[in-house]
């Protein structure tokens, strides 16, 4: 099945149309996010985990720096982790897996745009609402805690790129896992496996730099770290030039791996998709 409409009159017309459709899907996603803002707030509260971690490590570091992190550095780390987690959040896996299982995907397949674009836009469009709820929360915590230490330098210019890559990586992984729903019934619970590892290995609960040296070296090569730990450490300025380059390279590598996997599974999956009426 071809998702790009066949009635496109030439390349430029198609692009303009795609732009219009994308904008419409953005509006749809944004109003959805606004409509369910209570649920959104709860989600954000659920992800305040780094803020409590902040309080915890802040007090543990009272007796001196732990593994290169003093109190102010912990504040910077966990605040950045909180905000970047918000910015890179995605929930494609739950929606897409449910649509595949229930057959609702058929509706999306009928539309003259790629179904995955619909999901990407619905995730992106929620970003402003998420930020409006999350940033004040972060600021309150910052005022509450007081001391923060982060290096404001040119590396900040690279941070948006790292965050974007992290988001794309998250989305790719989620699409790949969701596409397993074409074959198995409980792909969303498989994702919980990923999420559990992510919580521990991404630097979400504790900076990976604090792991025992040998373990840290391995963990920092994994996709989990590329999806959170790297952008966070980049943002607060803990990385040297070569480390930044290596971090981006790893992000690219994992994005290529999971992006390809997601697309492959999607194509193979559509062939076996057997919803009612498909």
């Amino acid at each position, binding site marked *: 099945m071809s998702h790009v409409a066949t009635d496109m009159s030439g390349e430029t017309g198609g692009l303009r149309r795609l732009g219009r459709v994308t904008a419409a899907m953005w509006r749809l996603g944004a109003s959805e996010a606004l409509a*369910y803002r*209570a649920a959104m707030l709860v989600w954000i509260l659920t992800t305040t*985990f780094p803020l409590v971690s902040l309080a915890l490590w802040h007090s543990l570091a009272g007796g001196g720096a732990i593994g290169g992190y003093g109190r102010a550095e912990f504040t910077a780390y966990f605040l950045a982790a909180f905000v970047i987690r918000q910015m890179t959040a995605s929930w494609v896996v739950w929606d897409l897996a449910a649509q595949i299982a229930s057959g609702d995907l058929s509706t999306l397949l009928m539309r003259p745009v790629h179904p995955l674009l619909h999901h990407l836009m619905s995730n992106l469009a929620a970003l402003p609402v998420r930020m409006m709820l999350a940033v004040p929360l972060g600021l309150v915590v910052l005022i509450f805690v007081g001391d923060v230490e982060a290096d404001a330098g040119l590396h900040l210019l690279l941070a948006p790129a790292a965050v974007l890559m992290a988001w794309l990586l998250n989305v790719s992984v989620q699409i790949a896992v969701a596409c397993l729903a074409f074959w198995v019934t409980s792909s969303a619970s498989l994702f919980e496996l990923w999420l559990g590892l992510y919580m*521990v290995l991404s630097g979400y609960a504790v900076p990976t730099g604090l792991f*025992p040296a040998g373990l840290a070296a391995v963990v920092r090569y994994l996709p989990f770290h590329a999806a959170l730990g790297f952008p966070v450490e980049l943002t607060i300025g803990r990385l040297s030039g070569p480390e930044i380059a290596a971090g981006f390279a790893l992000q690219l590598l994992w994005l290529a791996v999971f992006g390809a996997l997601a697309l492959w599974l999607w194509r193979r999956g559509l062939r076996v998709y057997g919803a009612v009426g498909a």
Partner: protein
Amino acid sequence: MTAPDLAAGTGARSPGYYLRLIGGQLRMSVLAALQYRLGFWTEGVLGVVWSALGMAPLLVAVEHLETVEGWTAWELVVLTGCFTLVSGLFGALIQPALNESMNHIRRGTLDYVLLRPADALVLCLVTAFAPWRLVEALGGLILIVVGMIEIGRVPAALDILSALGMGVAGMVALYAFGVMILCASFRAVQLQNLTFLIEAILDFARWPAQVFRGFLRMVFTFVVPLAVMTTYPAEALLGRLEGSTVVTALATSAGLMLVARVLWLRALRGYTSASS
């Protein structure tokens, strides 16, 4: 079901009646769980794995600090055991019931629960269980025993008693939170993620309450009494829990349950079933 039974509605019933009711629901859940033996792996064993993975931050802290706010490594094992026990019980008893009841509220099928001749809140809280998660609770018990053996301390009968008391108080507090979330789901749809919120908060019960200071310390002692759930039982076993703390903790849990019950009765009045 006889007519007088129905007529009694949600009136007072003997404790024996409720024990039989809970027993019956438990038996059904166990039978269902035994049919799906894969659940032993996907729920039970995986639950244990998650618990172990979640220990990572605590391990990191121990490695860098040796003692965490006065807790030695083996004392932290006892604490982790208490956490694993509570978390397993939450997953086995509270979470499935909450999810099922929220589904009822959302779909309007709570009618069928309300019509039954027993207290609606009790019915909601026993509507589903996930027995395989008890594997995790068992793992917690083993951790506690191993930790106590390594420390070389035999808890006195009174210590065990107060640990049990604190554990029960902690579970009551968790139930109270569950009920408050149920109340909230009468008003807003799409609140399933609130049970995730409890889970996320519960994760901080792995840490000794002493690591939290000021505002958070107050919250975790009186509002979301994580301390009551894990730190106090562990301290009781280690023989350093004061009597006054026990009394405060019991009062906190009872207070939370009372608030939850009042909120529930108010929320129930606002329930509009699927058809009305």
